[in-house]
Protein backbone atom coordinates (compact mmCIF):
# COMPACT_ATOMS: atom_id res chain seq x y z
CA UNK A 1 0.00 0.00 0.00
CA UNK A 2 0.98 3.64 -0.40
CA UNK A 3 3.34 4.97 2.28
CA UNK A 4 2.34 8.43 3.54
CA UNK A 5 4.69 11.02 2.08
CA UNK A 6 5.96 12.32 5.40
CA UNK A 7 7.30 8.88 6.31
CA UNK A 8 9.38 8.75 3.14
CA UNK A 9 10.83 12.24 3.50
CA UNK A 10 11.12 12.80 7.28
CA UNK A 11 13.11 10.32 9.39
CA UNK A 12 11.61 9.12 12.66
CA UNK A 13 14.52 10.69 14.55
CA UNK A 14 13.18 14.16 13.74
CA UNK A 15 9.97 13.36 15.60
CA UNK A 16 12.10 12.14 18.50
CA UNK A 17 13.96 15.44 18.73
CA UNK A 18 10.84 17.52 18.20
CA UNK A 19 9.05 15.70 21.02
CA UNK A 20 12.11 16.10 23.24
CA UNK A 21 12.13 19.84 22.61
CA UNK A 22 8.42 20.13 23.32
CA UNK A 23 8.81 18.13 26.54
CA UNK A 24 11.71 20.30 27.70
CA UNK A 25 9.67 23.46 27.04
CA UNK A 26 6.99 21.96 29.30
CA UNK A 27 9.57 21.25 32.01
CA UNK A 28 10.86 24.81 31.65
CA UNK A 29 7.35 26.15 32.20
CA UNK A 30 6.82 24.05 35.31
CA UNK A 31 10.15 25.19 36.75
CA UNK A 32 10.09 28.90 35.93
CA UNK A 33 6.48 29.98 36.35
CA UNK A 34 4.67 30.50 39.62
CA UNK A 35 1.15 30.87 38.27
CA UNK A 36 -0.59 27.56 38.98
CA UNK A 37 -2.63 27.73 35.76
CA UNK A 38 0.45 28.18 33.56
CA UNK A 39 2.17 25.32 35.38
CA UNK A 40 -0.85 23.18 34.63
CA UNK A 41 -0.72 24.15 30.95
CA UNK A 42 2.97 23.22 30.83
CA UNK A 43 2.05 19.77 32.13
CA UNK A 44 -0.41 19.50 29.25
CA UNK A 45 2.43 20.40 26.86
CA UNK A 46 4.53 17.55 28.24
CA UNK A 47 1.62 15.11 27.85
CA UNK A 48 1.21 16.20 24.24
CA UNK A 49 4.89 15.73 23.49
CA UNK A 50 4.55 12.12 24.63
CA UNK A 51 1.34 11.71 22.62
CA UNK A 52 3.02 12.88 19.44
CA UNK A 53 5.93 10.49 19.92
CA UNK A 54 3.61 7.54 20.55
CA UNK A 55 1.54 8.37 17.47
CA UNK A 56 4.59 8.78 15.23
CA UNK A 57 6.15 5.48 16.36
CA UNK A 58 2.79 3.79 15.88
CA UNK A 59 2.47 5.11 12.32
CA UNK A 60 6.05 4.33 11.32
CA UNK A 61 5.90 0.80 12.78
CA UNK A 62 2.33 0.15 11.53
CA UNK A 63 1.17 -0.84 14.99
CA UNK A 64 -2.13 0.66 16.10
CA UNK A 65 -1.56 -0.08 19.82
CA UNK A 66 0.42 3.17 20.15
CA UNK A 67 -2.53 5.23 18.97
CA UNK A 68 -4.86 3.42 21.37
CA UNK A 69 -2.45 4.46 24.12
CA UNK A 70 -2.66 8.07 22.92
CA UNK A 71 -6.43 7.79 23.21
CA UNK A 72 -6.16 6.58 26.81
CA UNK A 73 -3.67 9.33 27.69
CA UNK A 74 -6.15 11.90 26.38
CA UNK A 75 -8.94 10.38 28.49
CA UNK A 76 -6.80 10.44 31.63
CA UNK A 77 -5.66 14.00 30.88
CA UNK A 78 -9.27 15.15 30.62
CA UNK A 79 -10.08 13.62 34.01
CA UNK A 80 -6.92 15.14 35.48
CA UNK A 81 -7.78 18.61 34.18
CA UNK A 82 -11.25 18.64 35.74
CA UNK A 83 -9.94 17.73 39.20
CA UNK A 84 -6.87 19.97 38.88
CA UNK A 85 -8.87 23.03 37.87
CA UNK A 86 -11.32 22.40 40.72
CA UNK A 87 -8.36 22.36 43.12
CA UNK A 88 -7.00 25.60 41.61
CA UNK A 89 -10.39 27.30 42.03
CA UNK A 90 -10.45 26.11 45.67
CA UNK A 91 -6.94 27.50 46.22
CA UNK A 92 -8.03 30.84 44.76
CA UNK A 93 -11.11 30.90 46.98
CA UNK A 94 -9.00 30.37 50.11
CA UNK A 95 -5.93 32.47 49.36
CA UNK A 96 -7.18 35.00 46.72
CA UNK A 97 -4.16 34.10 44.60
CA UNK A 98 -2.95 31.20 42.50
CA UNK A 99 0.73 31.78 43.17
CA UNK A 100 2.15 28.38 44.08
CA UNK A 101 4.70 30.05 46.33
CA UNK A 102 1.91 30.86 48.79
CA UNK A 103 1.23 27.17 49.18
CA UNK A 104 4.35 26.70 51.29
CA UNK A 105 2.04 27.46 54.21
CA UNK A 106 0.79 23.89 53.71
CA UNK A 107 3.98 22.83 55.48
CA UNK A 108 3.17 21.35 58.86
Amino acid at each position, binding site marked *: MQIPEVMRT*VPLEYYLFFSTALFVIGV*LGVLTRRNA*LVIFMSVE*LMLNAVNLLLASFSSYRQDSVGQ*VFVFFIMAVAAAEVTVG*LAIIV*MIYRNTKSIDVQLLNRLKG
Partner: protein
Amino acid sequence: MADKLFYFLTFLALLSALMVVFSRNPIHSVLYLILTFFTLSGHYVLLNAQFIAAVNIIVYAGAIMVLFLFVVMFLNLRSETQEKTSILSKVASVTAAGLLMVVLVAALKDVNLGTVQATPDFDSQVGMVEQLGKVLFSKFLLPFELASVLFLAAMVGAVMLGRREPGEQNTF
Protein backbone atom coordinates in the same frame (compact mmCIF):
# COMPACT_ATOMS: atom_id res chain seq x y z
CA MET B 1 5.75 18.97 0.07
CA ALA B 2 5.07 16.91 3.19
CA ASP B 3 8.51 17.59 4.61
CA LYS B 4 8.08 21.35 4.17
CA LEU B 5 4.74 21.06 5.96
CA PHE B 6 6.46 19.06 8.72
CA TYR B 7 9.10 21.75 9.25
CA PHE B 8 6.51 24.52 9.19
CA LEU B 9 4.26 22.78 11.75
CA THR B 10 7.25 21.94 13.94
CA PHE B 11 8.44 25.53 13.92
CA LEU B 12 4.96 26.84 14.70
CA ALA B 13 4.43 24.29 17.49
CA LEU B 14 7.75 25.06 19.21
CA LEU B 15 7.22 28.81 18.88
CA SER B 16 3.72 28.73 20.33
CA ALA B 17 4.83 26.34 23.09
CA LEU B 18 7.51 28.85 24.06
CA MET B 19 4.92 31.61 24.02
CA VAL B 20 2.72 29.53 26.37
CA VAL B 21 5.53 29.50 28.89
CA PHE B 22 6.74 33.07 28.48
CA SER B 23 3.63 35.19 27.94
CA ARG B 24 2.69 37.30 30.95
CA ASN B 25 -1.08 37.15 30.53
CA PRO B 26 -2.64 33.72 31.29
CA ILE B 27 -5.28 34.25 28.59
CA HIS B 28 -2.54 34.60 25.97
CA SER B 29 -1.00 31.40 27.32
CA VAL B 30 -4.31 29.58 26.82
CA LEU B 31 -4.69 30.88 23.26
CA TYR B 32 -1.12 29.90 22.35
CA LEU B 33 -1.72 26.46 23.84
CA ILE B 34 -4.76 26.05 21.58
CA LEU B 35 -2.53 26.98 18.61
CA THR B 36 -0.03 24.33 19.74
CA PHE B 37 -2.77 21.70 19.85
CA PHE B 38 -3.88 22.60 16.32
CA THR B 39 -0.34 22.26 14.98
CA LEU B 40 -0.03 18.89 16.72
CA SER B 41 -3.27 17.83 15.05
CA GLY B 42 -1.65 18.83 11.75
CA HIS B 43 1.21 16.49 12.62
CA TYR B 44 -1.24 13.68 13.29
CA VAL B 45 -2.89 14.23 9.90
CA LEU B 46 0.54 14.08 8.24
CA LEU B 47 1.18 10.78 10.03
CA ASN B 48 -2.13 9.43 8.67
CA ALA B 49 -3.49 9.16 12.24
CA GLN B 50 -6.80 10.77 11.48
CA PHE B 51 -8.74 9.47 14.47
CA ILE B 52 -6.16 10.87 16.88
CA ALA B 53 -6.16 14.19 14.99
CA ALA B 54 -9.93 14.53 15.35
CA VAL B 55 -9.93 13.46 19.01
CA ASN B 56 -7.10 15.90 19.73
CA ILE B 57 -9.14 18.79 18.30
CA ILE B 58 -12.36 17.74 20.05
CA VAL B 59 -10.98 16.78 23.46
CA TYR B 60 -7.99 19.10 23.88
CA ALA B 61 -8.72 22.18 21.81
CA GLY B 62 -12.45 21.83 22.38
CA ALA B 63 -13.14 20.62 25.89
CA ILE B 64 -9.98 21.03 27.97
CA MET B 65 -9.01 24.46 26.69
CA VAL B 66 -12.54 25.79 27.08
CA LEU B 67 -12.32 24.68 30.70
CA PHE B 68 -8.97 26.47 31.07
CA LEU B 69 -10.29 29.63 29.45
CA PHE B 70 -13.37 29.51 31.65
CA VAL B 71 -11.27 29.24 34.81
CA VAL B 72 -8.91 32.03 33.71
CA MET B 73 -11.83 34.38 33.10
CA PHE B 74 -13.64 33.17 36.22
CA LEU B 75 -10.68 33.99 38.44
CA ASN B 76 -10.30 37.41 36.75
CA LEU B 77 -6.51 37.43 37.00
CA ARG B 78 -4.88 40.70 36.19
CA SER B 79 -1.72 40.44 34.14
CA GLU B 80 -0.04 43.28 36.03
CA THR B 81 0.35 41.08 39.09
CA GLN B 82 3.97 40.35 38.31
CA GLU B 83 5.48 37.13 39.47
CA LYS B 84 8.30 37.95 41.81
CA THR B 85 10.86 35.28 41.11
CA SER B 86 14.47 35.75 42.08
CA ILE B 87 17.09 35.83 39.34
CA LEU B 88 18.92 32.94 40.97
CA SER B 89 15.95 30.57 40.84
CA LYS B 90 15.23 31.60 37.23
CA VAL B 91 18.81 30.86 36.18
CA ALA B 92 18.73 27.58 38.10
CA SER B 93 15.51 26.39 36.47
CA VAL B 94 16.59 27.38 32.95
CA THR B 95 19.89 25.58 33.52
CA ALA B 96 18.08 22.49 34.78
CA ALA B 97 15.79 22.40 31.74
CA GLY B 98 18.73 22.98 29.39
CA LEU B 99 20.67 20.17 30.99
CA LEU B 100 17.66 17.86 30.64
CA MET B 101 17.56 18.73 26.93
CA VAL B 102 21.30 18.05 26.58
CA VAL B 103 21.03 14.70 28.36
CA LEU B 104 18.04 13.57 26.30
CA VAL B 105 19.58 14.62 22.98
CA ALA B 106 22.92 13.03 23.89
CA ALA B 107 21.16 9.80 24.79
CA LEU B 108 19.03 9.75 21.65
CA LYS B 109 21.31 11.13 18.95
CA ASP B 110 23.00 7.86 18.04
CA VAL B 111 19.87 5.75 18.17
CA ASN B 112 19.18 3.78 15.01
CA LEU B 113 15.47 3.60 14.30
CA GLY B 114 15.76 2.24 10.77
CA THR B 115 13.88 3.44 7.75
CA VAL B 116 10.42 2.68 6.46
CA GLN B 117 10.58 -0.05 3.84
CA ALA B 118 8.31 0.33 0.84
CA THR B 119 7.10 -3.25 1.06
CA PRO B 120 3.87 -4.14 -0.72
CA ASP B 121 2.24 -5.13 2.57
CA PHE B 122 2.84 -1.72 4.18
CA ASP B 123 -0.22 -0.98 6.27
CA SER B 124 -1.00 2.74 6.03
CA GLN B 125 -4.45 2.31 7.61
CA VAL B 126 -3.40 1.85 11.26
CA GLY B 127 -4.69 5.29 12.25
CA MET B 128 -8.14 4.85 10.78
CA VAL B 129 -11.21 4.50 12.96
CA GLU B 130 -11.92 0.96 11.76
CA GLN B 131 -8.59 -0.54 12.81
CA LEU B 132 -8.32 1.45 16.04
CA GLY B 133 -11.86 0.45 17.00
CA LYS B 134 -11.08 -3.21 16.43
CA VAL B 135 -8.06 -3.03 18.73
CA LEU B 136 -9.79 -0.83 21.31
CA PHE B 137 -12.81 -3.09 21.70
CA SER B 138 -10.96 -6.40 21.72
CA LYS B 139 -7.51 -6.12 23.22
CA PHE B 140 -8.15 -3.02 25.34
CA LEU B 141 -11.76 -3.58 26.34
CA LEU B 142 -11.05 -3.71 30.08
CA PRO B 143 -9.00 -0.46 30.19
CA PHE B 144 -11.67 1.19 28.07
CA GLU B 145 -14.36 0.29 30.58
CA LEU B 146 -12.14 1.27 33.51
CA ALA B 147 -11.74 4.71 31.91
CA SER B 148 -15.45 5.27 32.50
CA VAL B 149 -14.98 4.52 36.21
CA LEU B 150 -12.11 7.02 36.20
CA PHE B 151 -14.38 9.67 34.68
CA LEU B 152 -17.05 8.99 37.28
CA ALA B 153 -14.46 9.38 40.05
CA ALA B 154 -13.14 12.59 38.47
CA MET B 155 -16.65 14.00 38.16
CA VAL B 156 -17.48 13.23 41.80
CA GLY B 157 -14.13 14.66 42.88
CA ALA B 158 -14.60 17.89 40.95
CA VAL B 159 -18.09 18.40 42.34
CA MET B 160 -16.88 17.66 45.87
CA LEU B 161 -14.00 20.13 45.55
CA GLY B 162 -16.07 22.85 43.94
CA ARG B 163 -18.86 22.68 46.49
CA ARG B 164 -19.15 25.54 48.93
CA GLU B 165 -18.57 24.60 52.52
CA PRO B 166 -21.54 25.29 54.85
CA GLY B 167 -21.00 28.68 56.43
CA GLU B 168 -18.44 29.80 53.83
CA GLN B 169 -18.71 33.39 52.66
CA ASN B 170 -20.00 34.00 49.17
CA THR B 171 -16.85 35.64 47.85
CA PHE B 172 -17.46 35.80 44.10
